[in-house]
């Protein structure tokens, strides 16, 4: 399964990277969304996926006994998901305003601040 996930993550990355390099501002946002999903999945995979069940101590037990899936990447992913959500919400509004201010969705037209 890890191998399959590795391929899926690679495809998500490829697609995400391709999208962010497009000139359309919406595609940029969509691409970043794909990259976020891919990164989360990658970290999750680093805990070595297993179908062993959630890392929750069963009632009555004193500690968690194997097998269980690694809780650390899960905690990291949770944090990352939430952060990305915040960033994404902001990004969406930023893009909307940039579109309204410049009147275009073509990123190549946003060149006034360089040069």
């Amino acid at each position, binding site marked *: 399964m890890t191998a399959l996930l590795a391929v899926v993550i690679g495809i998500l990355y490829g697609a995400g990277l391709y999208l962010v390099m497009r000139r359309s501002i919406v595609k940029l946002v969509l691409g970043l969304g794909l990259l976020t999903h891919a990164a989360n999945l*990658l970290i999750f995979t*680093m805990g070595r996926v297993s179908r062993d069940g959630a890392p929750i101590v069963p009632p009555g037990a004193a500690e968690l006994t194997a097998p269980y899936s690694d809780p650390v990447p899960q905690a990291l992913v949770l944090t990352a998901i939430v952060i990305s959500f915040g960033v994404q919400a902001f990004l969406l509004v930023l*893009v909307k305003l940039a579109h309204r201010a410049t009147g275009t969705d073509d990123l190549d037209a946003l060149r006034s601040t360089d040069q």
Partner: protein
Amino acid sequence: MTRALPVLPVLVPLATAIACLALHAFPRARRAASVGGAGLLLLAAAALLRHVDAAEFAVLQVGAWPAPFGISLVADRFAAILVLLTGVTGLAVAVYSLGSIDDVREAHGYHTLFHVLLAGVCMAFLTGDLFNLYVAFEVMLMASFVLLALGGERAQLEGAVKYVTLNLLSSGFFLVAVGTLYGVAGTLNMADLARTLESGVAPGLSTTLACLLLVAFGIKAAVFPLFFWLPASYHTPPVAVSAVFAGLLTKVGVYALVRAFTLIFRAEPEFTDALILGIAVFTMVTGVLGAAAQFEFRRVLSFHIVSQIGYMVLGLGLATPLALAGTVFYLMHHIVVKTNLFLVGGLVKWIGGTLALESLGGIYKRRPALALLFLVPAFSLAGIPPLSGFWGKLVLVKAGLDAGQYLVTAIALAVSLLTLYSMTKLWNEAFWKEPPAPGPREDQPLPWTLLGPVVALAAITVAVGLAAGPVFDLASRAGAQLSDPARYVEAVLGPGAAR
């Protein structure tokens, strides 16, 4: 209270931010809280540095969970120095903001954002946990995103789109690297990672991840060829925001590079050091050339940030204790000077109504004292003795010569000459030449909120230059710590951990 020292520089600005958010109906109280909080941060930072300089390390295990399981906050001298400079910059810009940020921006959370930014920066300097460093970056970045776009002018939004996109990309690389490092080494604590990777776990992968982090941190530090976001955006927000960005944000990237390559990744120094050295050279040169083509005050300065980052990275690439001391010294000098130059830019704009060089002029004639206030940071940036920048340059040049890197050293010196060229361009255009038209506030007295921080920072620059001995000794002690990662590992994980 000693035990709390490593966390106070995060908690104080965070609490200040919350206070500013809660005080949204009381503008005056909010402004007072903002400046007061910045002052407290400076005090806390000073106490931390005093403690760390004597005790070598201050380590706090958040939640009292032992390392490497909980999150460690680790202050060595390098981190403590940078936290102190964050305090200095924070207070200067907080005061400056009082006189320069309009009340609409203030009402929309300016002060909260500003203090969250400081909290994120301090958190990045102090954390001893790689994932927590990611979180710190996000805290800092999110605040910077909003500060950059706050106001909604077209230029701001355009700049923000680029800034946000490229920085998110960097965060993405960082996240991948951290996740993979966990998958390989099974830990997130930096000291523990250093120990684990040292023991030879997955050597090839470790270099790969080092490269990935080099790119991730390199984007934040704005090194060649990853700096595009900086000149595209830094000149668009209000001056106070540019100033705090210029002083601190890229330096967090440099800090992370230094931390990563002195502590965590030491598997293949011959490869990574050469790489970093090459990056340093290109960063210095492209940055300074970029500045030579600009004719707007803040754009010139923005490109110089890039160029100066090259110097800091140069010390890291040389990797000797002297060179690392040089990097530390350079960082200290640069944070103060660069912040100040942007603040002076604000004064110029206040007087002349613009920052476009062709429309400026005549400030030397009418306000010679202010002109001197520009010359101090400008000449310091160009490395004119005995100002602070000279010593930073001297140490790096000496380290370069000692290491036999003659070409690199020659380039560094040439770049400093071109820096001088840019600074004289600003001086020529804004201060010396006749203005094409009088500015809006030619003869009004400058408010103390704007002038005070500039004077204070200039005084620091001069003082660091004149009292370079003790400052260099401090940088040297910090450099020595960086060259001896085993001490760091033992400070976090306990005696004997580094074997």
